[in-house]
């Protein structure tokens, strides 16, 4: 517990010393959504609501995946990870600290993006905004967990960034935005069924449509959170204390 708190504080302090990263994290999703909004604004049948909602789930996932995989890779190559592993800090606490720190950053990111999207871009969002933020944060933590896991398989930052399209794009293609899931080939739908982003996007679409919170939404959030927990456990397993 102490180790988690210390790690969370440390990672947030590192972010604070890097204001440009912080600003990019907070405003880039809103700017990109704005671009989509302008793209479709004058069209009679605008897909903006559907796409915008999906992007609310994709942004935190992509950004946190990239940031954590690089941050963890730096820990590995700079020797700080080796040192941390000789201290009383447990591997679980280290990873939980990363998840908490970037989860908190994701809260700020989601609040900014959702506020801008609903006020400036008139994104049609009927469900409670707090739940939208929760889905975004669950997605962000999933990104963190997969980023931590991916960093174990990368030897350099060049390799680490290449994992991003590998992990993100298939989930994005199959999440139901480009082709409705019911219309996909059976096997693709089966793949889509086991990809966590599918559930985050489903929850966000529900939140767009329904004013009341449905059981489906909670189930979707639970699936995303469960996938994040699983990825964190796998990341902990790849974090070897003894190396050759």
């Amino acid at each position, binding site marked *: 517990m102490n180790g988690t708190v210390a790690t969370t504080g440390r990672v947030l302090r*590192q972010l604070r010393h890097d204001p440009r990263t912080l600003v990019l994290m907070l405003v880039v999703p809103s700017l990109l959504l704005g671009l989509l909004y302008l793209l479709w604004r004058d069209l009679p049948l605008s897909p903006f609501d559907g796409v915008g909602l999906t992007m609310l789930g994709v942004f935190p996932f992509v950004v946190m995946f990239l940031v954590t995989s690089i941050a963890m890779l730096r820990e590995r190559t700079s*020797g700080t990870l080796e*040192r*941390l592993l*000789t201290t*009383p800090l447990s591997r679980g606490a280290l990873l939980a600290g990363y998840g908490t720190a970037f989860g908190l950053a994701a809260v700020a990111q989601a609040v900014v993006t959702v506020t801008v999207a609903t006020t400036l871009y008139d994104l049609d969002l009927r469900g409670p905004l707090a739940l939208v933020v929760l889905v975004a944060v669950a997605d962000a933590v999933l990104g963190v967990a997969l980023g931590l896991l991916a960093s174990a398989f990368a030897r350099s930052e060049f390799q680490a960034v290449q994992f991003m399209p590998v992990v993100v794009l298939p989930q994005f293609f199959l999440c139901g935005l480009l082709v409705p899931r019911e219309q996909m080939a059976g096997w693709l739908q089966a793949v889509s069924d086991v990809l966590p982003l599918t559930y985050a996007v489903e929850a966000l679409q529900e939140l767009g449509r329904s004013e009341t919170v449905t059981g489906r939404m909670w189930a979707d959030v639970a699936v995303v959170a469960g996938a994040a927990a699983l990825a964190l456990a796998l990341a902990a397993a790849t974090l070897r*204390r003894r*190396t050759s």
Partner: protein
Amino acid sequence: MDDAVTVRHLVVDRGHRRVLPGLSCAVPAGAVTGLLGPSGSGKTTLLRALVGVQRVRSGEVTVLGEPAGSPGLRRRVGYVTQAPSVYPDLTVRENARHFAALYGRGARAADDAVATVGLADAAGQLVADLSGGQRGRASLACALVGEPELLVLDEPTVGLDPVLRVELWDRFHALAAAGTTLLVSSHVMDEAGRCDRLLLLREGRLLADLTPGELRTDAGTADLEEAFLSLVRRGEGVSA
């Protein structure tokens, strides 16, 4: 005197190379022991085995009465890696406070450790903006902050100016006088004279375990560099 560390028949492979082919040695408690040997002789590998981050093939390493790498040892052993392992995007103070928190210590202990390594004036500076020698001292502060019983230091004085080097060695001896065991590696033989005891390593084998005085009389020269070389030559003569 008790031994803080005992190593028996330690075999370590790195890559396809056998780096330690069956090393046995001991580190006395409450003293400053120097681990000396040329670059590539296996010093870092041995230290990594002591702190429990090196995968070993066989052999036994006992640290403060427990097998190396035991969870209980993580509070009792401090390790400073050869390359400074601190966060460049944090200040010196923030680094020290982070490691203090991991060891269950407060901000006071962190600030003391920073002052101890002579970085009080640079405490608010980002580590990225420090000189190489300062960075090494910041790294050292992050180990001192845990007040470990055993301090394992991998080439801590490389790149330091002579004045600072003397100050650090004085600090090491003060710690030893207070009961801390120190194991300090170096590839510079002129540091050997500052140790209470020397472990001389060459190609993963223990060449000698003696005091600096013994090394000088043994080799018949006051120059420790010279003495080390004559020991190497003698060893080669025997094995040939």
